[in-house]
């Protein structure tokens, strides 16, 4: 599964403008800190938008990705107060690709949060 071809991150929809992107990034970085405790030193994940998570050159195998998904979902609930399922689209599928990089995941989360909140501002 690790060698699957995924959607090219450079072709993803622009996300930096999403009002929830920074929150999503914070949640992901907290989850990375947790998941790194499971990983050997050389496989630990860097907290950077360009870090490849899953697929070719990714640091997570399918067990690691499953653990990561559960941790991220829990952090979203804790930090943003929302129950957002990250497995509605098959996370292991090459065609989905939102777990390909930190940036693609942050984009996916921020769009999901925006949908849940109907475009409301995080503090409102």
């Amino acid at each position: 599964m690790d060698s699957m071809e995924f959607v090219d991150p450079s072709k993803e929809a622009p996300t930096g403008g999403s009002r929830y992107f920074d929150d999503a990034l914070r949640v992901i970085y907290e989850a990375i800190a947790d998941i790194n405790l499971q990983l050997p030193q050389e496989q630990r994940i860097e907290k950077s938008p360009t870090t490849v998570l899953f697929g070719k050159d990714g640091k997570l195998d399918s067990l690691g990705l499953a653990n990561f998904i559960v941790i991220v979902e829990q952090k979203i609930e804790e930090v943003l107060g929302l129950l957002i399922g990250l497995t509605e689209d098959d996370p292991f599928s090459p065609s989905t690709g939102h777990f390909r990089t930190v940036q693609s995941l942050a984009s996916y989360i921020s769009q999901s949060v925006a949908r849940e909140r109907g475009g409301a501002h995080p503090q409102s």
Partner: protein
Amino acid sequence: MMTSSGTSNAALNLHLISDFNLETLGQYVRNDTSAPVVSVSSAPFGQVFPTLLEPSPSGPSSFALVWTIPEKLVPTFAAALNYVAISEERLIAEVREFADCLRKAQKHFRAIFVVSWTLPSYYRGTGILNLKGQGPRKLLLKMNLALAEELENCGNIYVLDGQRWIDAVGKNSHSPKLYYLTKTPFHAEVFVRAVRELKAAITAVLGASKKLVILDLDNTLWGGVVGDLGWEKVRLGGHDYVGEAYVDFQKALKGLRNRGILLAIASKNQESIALEALAKHPEMVLRPTDFTTWRINWKDKAANIADLVAELRLGLQSAVFIDDNPVERARVREALPEVYVPEWPADPTLFPSSLLQLDCFDSAYATAEDALRQEMYATEKQREFSRKAVGSAEEWLLSLDTELTVEELSDANRVRVVQLLNKTNQMNLTTRRLSEQELQTWLQSDKRKLWAFRVRDKFGDSGLTGILSLEVTSEVAYVSDFVLSCRVMGRNIERAMVACASRYCASLGLRELRAHYLPTVKNKPCLEFWMSSGFSHKEENWFVWLLDQPYVFPPGIKVNSLPGVDADAVAAQDGSPHGNQVSPVPASTR
């Protein structure tokens, strides 16, 4: 929370046996660099019974973790969860079958840790009927109790309380999503807690748990500064929430003392004022007699602690230091890194719970010697006073009226022998660590012999404090274990043990008795003994006694029995001018 360090077992392995995906726990264990470092192997997924019945070959340093889902392992419980009326006899019989398999596997591992069965935190069951009739939680309690009782007498199988890990994580402890994705029912946080407990359990089995708590006084055992307030006005008990917390903290410490953990004081105070407070305050739980020793003065605490630990003949790694003052904690951490200094809350109401959650006191055994440790050290103090009163060391040793009782391994002493074998660092020739099962297997050959030595003198009973084992070939006997508790070191017990071995070997007509010292960072005292033992020492770390000469018993030590050696033969060989006595061996011990 901490896991105690101080072990040097580099090649420890944990074998995971489970009916769910336990790989996440394995990853946490692999990445945990705190001592003891443990490698991980896994049994084939879901193959619990076949693995227990035919485990793959494992070494003496291999531990097993057996963690199962109750409704998967026990079919009758699965039926009960679906509210089918079940036979409770059948349910318990299935638990016993599992316990049987664990017993069969125990000889393959140094220790087996079995996690108690739990139900998911989201599982509501039958609500108010959960603990009535065949309520699921009632049945699960019965199953766990039956399992614990079945394994009660298995010296190297321990049931770990998995419910604590679930409770600590709370509502997120189980993840249905993770289960459906990866067949892992638990959230990673449960495994983080499990790893801490496993490390503490392995440390306990290795005998590296802490033995001594050194306490500050002012604002640690009571509120306020006794030198300023006087003992009548310190905060302790009364109708005061802080005073009550200090009383509960002292009660928790008293509980540790009752478990055999020594208490000591390192406090910057005037000794007479502090001791008066301990003796006179009506709500003081800990009295001066509860403390094995103390250093109450104005000197540096680190120096006082080093001195105090040396007095008790313990290693610094055996000690825990508790002080409310962060500056003192930092000082001791810096000066004595081997001493464990837990972070301590500023709020006294958190003192009792902070103490009760420490895992560094976990012990794999509870023996009579543990419970009496405090008394044994008290009699040691009396010995020290008498040593100062008597002119020479030789006269003092003669005045002790020491008696040595020699026993073979038996059901009555096995737990203590294994504990001593695995805990002793200083007077230990080979530092061989064995489980009960491994020791019994080793002794199955009639070429091997093991004696346990009980020591008592006019001041009291020091308990079972020595072990000597031998491996005999056609002409030579090799000492496999030579172990003596630091509690009785320096009282010529070492020489008496060697004399016993030489008598036994001579009675077999052997030519030589040899001992091979295996150095560790802690067993230099053992080398010093053998260097002065009178054995020839021509090859590095090898010590040889030619058995055509009797090895003389030290004067003043009476040996009550010597199993395996004819008493007359022993007495006839005794060259001691002090007329050492060897009593006939009681028939029951032969």
